[in-house]
């Protein structure tokens, strides 16, 4: 089974990278956002392949809405969202290429250099994973979980304030 997993990992890993690349290679904003979605789904599938079912499904579910919402903002704020003008999406090309190469080298280096330990052969099934995850949230990571709540609240208030401020200033 390991070999099947490996093949799938490679396929969907490459798919994730390819879609990630497509994000920048299209001049249509919506297509760009949905390419990112496709890339994220591929990553979600990678989770599934590695048998982290909850994470995989969650990733696929959340990205579906979030990338669509990103699409609306990209469309609202970018010129020519349809890309009919064949406008270039990239700016500062040289710097970007340099940054990309450096980061890639660094990540690949880190991946190769790190000690990943032995490959786990025994791990709980999906249901047990969900249960353990729940236990983790409610026991050991409770503070983190509650902190996340407050963080989300802060984010919510901040985003609403920013979003509505333009409007309110117009109305006043």
């Amino acid at each position, binding site marked *: 089974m390991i070999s099947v997993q490996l093949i799938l990992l490679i396929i969907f890993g490459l798919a994730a990278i390819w879609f990630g690349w497509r994000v920048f290679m299209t001049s*249509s904003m*919506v*297509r760009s956002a*949905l390419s990112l*979605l496709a890339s994220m789904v591929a990553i979600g599938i990678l989770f599934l392949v590695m048998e982290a*079912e*909850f994470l995989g*499904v*969650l990733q*696929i*579910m959340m990205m*579906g*809405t979030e990338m*669509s*919402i990103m*699409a*609306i903002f990209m469309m609202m704020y970018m010129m020519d969202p*349809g890309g*009919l003008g064949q406008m270039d999406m990239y700016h500062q090309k040289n710097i970007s290429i340099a940054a990309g190469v450096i980061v890639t080298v660094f990540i690949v280096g880190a991946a190769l250099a790190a000690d990943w330990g032995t490959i786990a052969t025994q791990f709980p*099934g*999906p*249901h047990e*994973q*969900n249960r353990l995850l729940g236990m983790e949230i409610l026991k050991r990571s409770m503070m983190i979980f509650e902190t996340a709540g407050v963080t989300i609240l802060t984010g919510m208030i901040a985003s609403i304030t920013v979003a509505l401020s333009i409007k309110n200033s117009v109305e006043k």
Partner: protein
Amino acid sequence: MTPFLSGFMITLLFVGGVYFVAVLERCSMTGNVSWSGPARSFLLLFAQEEIKTRKHDKVFFETAPILFIGVILLTISILPFSRGSVVIDLGTGALFINAALVYIMVALLMAGWAVNGVYAMVGGWRALAQLIAYSMPVVMALTATVMRAESMFLTDIVESQQSLWNILYQPVGFILFYISALAIAFLPPFDLPVAEGELAGGVWADLTGARKLLFRLGRLALVLTLSVAVVVLYLGGWMGPWLPGFVWTFLKTLLVAASFFAVGHFIPRIRHDHLLEYNWKYGVPLALYNIFQVGVVLLL
């Protein structure tokens, strides 16, 4: 039942169910029952030309119908039709339903964008608005069923209703899920993305031939899927006296599907702003109340 037999049964029920839903839909549209009508409609679209609009987004234009029908088929494959008769019993089934159904919206959005016409585009973005409206109540309603079953296996959720169906155990959750299911399937009164009197067909207005066929077929399958989901989550799934499990599922499903079509007949199309507003102002608090109520009852 052997896996082969149950697979056969499921396929049969599915195909038959879709056809039956097609008859129901037609009946709700024209007012009279016609058993050959859906087949003729199918052939009409089959014989039709394929028109691609100018400057359409090729990738979306080709993938949207496939995505649409694909996610629906994946969803139905994880729903149990009877004890042991489930193609794939996923450990996170309850979450998976939600995840897959999100992509219905994505497919609509893609189709709306792909055509490059204003009617379709308005429809596509309306689909996203609709999802933003109904998504929270759906998730929270699903969570409450999971709480009772202590598992995300859909079979476990059905089993948990042995003593009392969820429709009685958590009626608020049922109502929220039922209404949201209508919105997910963009059936009237939630047919905003494809509104006839407003957008002349909206998202799928400019699709012809095979693509339209796939969307139409997909929507029928979607109605069936959601009906099964309602049955599994709230109506005790295959449970019932005397008859075999899958017959119960089938009967309950058809009843729910028929009610889906009936609702739209008596309510005018909901307004886009009302949909969002009501869901967030009343739907979300109600869903939270539902969780709280189930939580308290479970601990008693």
